[in-house]
């Protein structure tokens, strides 16, 4: 075993190296140079993202605790793209006076969580998985409380850290039962030894509850809205896209590779929770006034749709989930990008504040509309394709009723997305958001998002590539 074999851990190593570099820069650079930390971090991370696409080999490390394959690399790359967008989007926010002191902390924490997620995805053992998931969670709580002078931010932080501690506890409790009944924590071995006993199902349900917490599946979602609302917008966007995405990735890997023995149980679980998730998420989203809270509930219902890809346990399902997440990253970050831009420029975060936005800031409104349509699944943007594939995956296994429920739910979601569109285009604003110029970073991020929203759907090659790397139960 040479040092070269560690190269298969490229993603994680690069992230850790980057984190260290940022830390070093923070320590050794003087005041003047520190201004460039965000630019430095973004460029660094851009390089990492690009490097992630270099061809890599599959393999295992640490006696099977770390496993990597083309699929996991793909997942990590998707997360990297999303995280890069978040990085770019947060630059203007970090330039504000109150945040300039903490710029490097922000990047440092984000990079660590990303490393945690990558480890989680590449886990071959529950210990690695656990460490990854905690590494991905704890720093985020700190980030949620980043706006230390805001009540809401502190509240978000405490809600996140305590809820996630509870969920980790439950997850671990479930895990301990799995360990108790199988005697191993290696994914492969668990998969072989897993039976269908009550204790194992109990363990699985507890474990699932812990995972569901991360994806914010109903009824484990209650923290989501509050934390999303309280956190700084950039953190919210990161939470709603990257954290959720990573959890979805690992959950689908676990369900497909570790728990195929109890497929009928988890299919039912998914069935129930996905119906609950989309419906409850939508019902709450209807009434929201705060755009972040609104997007929080929207993201909950999106999670419900994503579960439709899980349910069949088929290759198409996995492909559609991954694909949908890619689309979701672009769409949701597009929406958040606009929210961030407006929040930075004016501090306004309510839907009412968007009244008449089109007349002052047409391009931002158009991007928002595009993003929302993509989230709602309106063609010809990518969200339509994503949803279509998810539904197809569920229908392939005959879950027509579930698909029907899901598509009817999309109508509710269309309703509230249109409310925002209506605010921007139709409503007359008494004090509309003033016309403002976005800086380079915002424009760049939004441009990437728009390109993603438009291209990802039509370019069938993307879906086909994902499909080839996916697998079924």
């Amino acid at each position: 075993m040479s040092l070269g074999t560690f190269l298969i851990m490229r993603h994680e190593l690069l992230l850790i190296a980057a984190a260290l570099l940022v830390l070093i820069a923070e320590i050794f650079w003087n005041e003047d140079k520190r201004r460039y930390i965000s630019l430095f971090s973004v460029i660094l991370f851009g390089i990492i993202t690009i490097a992630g696409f270099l061809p890599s080999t599959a393999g295992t490390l640490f006696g099977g605790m770390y496993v990597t394959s083309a699929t996991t690399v793909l997942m990590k790359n998707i997360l990297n793209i999303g995280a890069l967008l978040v990085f770019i989007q947060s630059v203007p926010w970090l330039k504000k006076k109150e945040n300039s002191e903490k710029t490097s902390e922000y990047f440092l924490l984000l990079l660590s969580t990303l490393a945690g997620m990558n480890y989680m995805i590449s886990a071959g053992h529950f210990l690695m998985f656990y460490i990854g998931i905690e590494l991905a969670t704890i720093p985020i709580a700190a980030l949620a409380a980043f706006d230390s002078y805001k009540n809401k931010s502190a509240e978000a932080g405490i809600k996140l850290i305590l809820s996630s501690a509870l969920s980790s506890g439950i997850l671990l409790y479930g895990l301990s039962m799995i360990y108790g009944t199988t005697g191993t924590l290696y994914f492969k071995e668990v998969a072989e030894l897993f039976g269908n006993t009550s204790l194992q199902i109990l363990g699985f349900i507890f474990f699932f509850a812990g995972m569901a917490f991360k994806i914010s599946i109903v009824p484990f979602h209650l923290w989501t809205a509050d934390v999303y609302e309280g956190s700084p917008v950039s953190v919210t966007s990161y939470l709603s896209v990257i954290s959720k995405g990573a959890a979805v990735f690992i959950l689908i890997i676990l369900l497909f590779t570790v728990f195929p023995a109890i497929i009928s149980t988890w299919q039912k679980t998914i069935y129930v929770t996905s119906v609950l998730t989309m419906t409850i998420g939508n019902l709450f989203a209807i009434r929201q006034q705060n755009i972040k809270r609104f997007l929080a509930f929207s993201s909950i219902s999106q999670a419900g749709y994503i579960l439709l890809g899980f349910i069949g346990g088929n290759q198409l399902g996995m492909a559609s989930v991954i694909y949908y997440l890619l689309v979701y990253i672009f769409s949701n970050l597009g929406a958040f990008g606009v929210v961030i831009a407006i929040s930075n420029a004016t501090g306004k975060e309510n839907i009412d504040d968007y009244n008449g936005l089109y007349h002052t800031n047409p391009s931002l409104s158009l991007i928002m509309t595009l993003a929302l349509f993509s989230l709602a699944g309106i063609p010809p943007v990518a969200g339509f394709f994503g949803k279509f594939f998810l539904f197809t995956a569920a229908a392939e296994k005959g879950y027509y009723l579930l698909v029907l429920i899901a598509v009817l739910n999309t109508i509710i979601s269309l309703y509230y997305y249109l409310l925002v569109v209506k605010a921007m285009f139709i409503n007359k604003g008494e004090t509309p958001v003033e016309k403002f110029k976005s800086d380079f970073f915002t424009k760049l991020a939004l441009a990437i998002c728009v390109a993603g929203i438009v291209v990802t759907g039509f370019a069938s090659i993307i879906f086909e590539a994902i499909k080839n790397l996916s697998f079924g139960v």
Partner: protein
Amino acid sequence: MDILTLFVVIPVLTITGILFLKDTRQVRLVSAFGMGIQLILAGVLVFAYLSARNAGNTEEMLFIKDYLWFKSLNIHYAVGVDGISVAMIGLTSIVVFAGIFASWEVEFLTKEFFISLILLATGVFGFFISIDLFTMFLFYEVAVIPMYLLIGIWGSGPKEYSAMKLTLMLMGGSAILLVGLLGIYFNSAPGGTQLTFNILEISKVSIPIAAQRLFFPLTFLGFGVLGALFPFHTWSPDGHASAPTAVSMLHAGVLMKLGGYGAFRVAIFLLPEGAKELSWIFIILTSISVVYGAFGAIAQKDLKYINAYSSVSHCGLVLFAVLMMNKTAMNGAILQMISHGLMTALFFALIGMLYGRTHTRMISEMGGLMKVIPFLSVCYVIAGLASLGLPGLSGFVAEMTIFVGAFQHPELFYRIVTILAVSSIVITAVYILRVVAILLLGPTTNEHHEHLTDAKWFEKISVVTLIGSVAAIGLAPFWLSSMIGTSLQPIVDRIVALNPF
């Protein structure tokens, strides 16, 4: 680039062109130019189609182009036309062309208006050329969504409410439809070969009867919502009443036809046995639509509401005829779609022009306009006469084909409901004449209306195009009817093979 794809590309190019323009006048001109080309292209297509047929080409679909899109799901971008789609494309280009001129005076956000309008048209054209269920569905939704903005921004009255209702109900329909389409897809290869979305390929296999029973109602209902099937028609009065002129024209004239066309092309064609078994349910619903819409129209006070209810009645007739599942009735259904498309567009155009002058749509507030604005009034009378099925105009041809066809149904029940549907022609006459009498004839009641100006040049272009088409079909229906009839033959053969009457 094949000729059919051009129907999507030209609107997209027009939109792109408009995007870079600042001046309202140029925006209008570019729109009119683009849609003019589209109209010419439609003419070329009709000509090409007919000459190909005359040359002995007996394929079901012509000008087929097929590009693999999503390999793993076997989704193709596949286009092709038969006589029915050609006719519908012709209809669409006429109505869109007329619609552009009818909205010549849109002043508020002109650029955005024309972009949305043409985007809508893109969806419609795409829908009619598609022979792949996926692309068809995609275009279908593309056509529906711009409606929200068009009504919400440029509409009148309770526009936001109407726009939302219309969008949600139509999307609700398409949601149900999606399940139906997926069901068809996953049953498209009972022999274990590759699943397909291609209509022509699916039509060659027979989907298991249990699946047909399940998915026929979903598919039909999904399209039916757009075709204003009772009781899912309530978006129509509100939507039409609030929509700006050109949007009403396009929506009632073309978009509602998507429902009928889809019900026919997908629900009936691909699921004939299910259709046969369950048609009675929908026959009852559509019969209700036909009579109920007409009665509803009598009691209305707003011109657009009258026309909206009338559309419910007429579009109900389309679905009604489609469900009769014989060649003549289906031929009538297609004719009715075209005819209703043209005349309802004409109606809405005229209502818009009247509204632009009188600033009211309440019939009680107008009267005796014939004397003041004879051109528009005469056109209105012609539209009314077309609507009530006067021979020599298109409505008659379509309705008679439907009635005769429907009455050929071997079962007594269907013939009796046909008689019920036939009775709608009287009710139609009642509400049309009521409006004509109050609105146009008699002394001029409102002194503010005594100095209105008659139609302007662009309004005349819009109206004359439509009246010309209505009259052309009405006077010489044979070529259109036979073009549709030839295309219907394979469909009918398939239905007859499966359900020998």
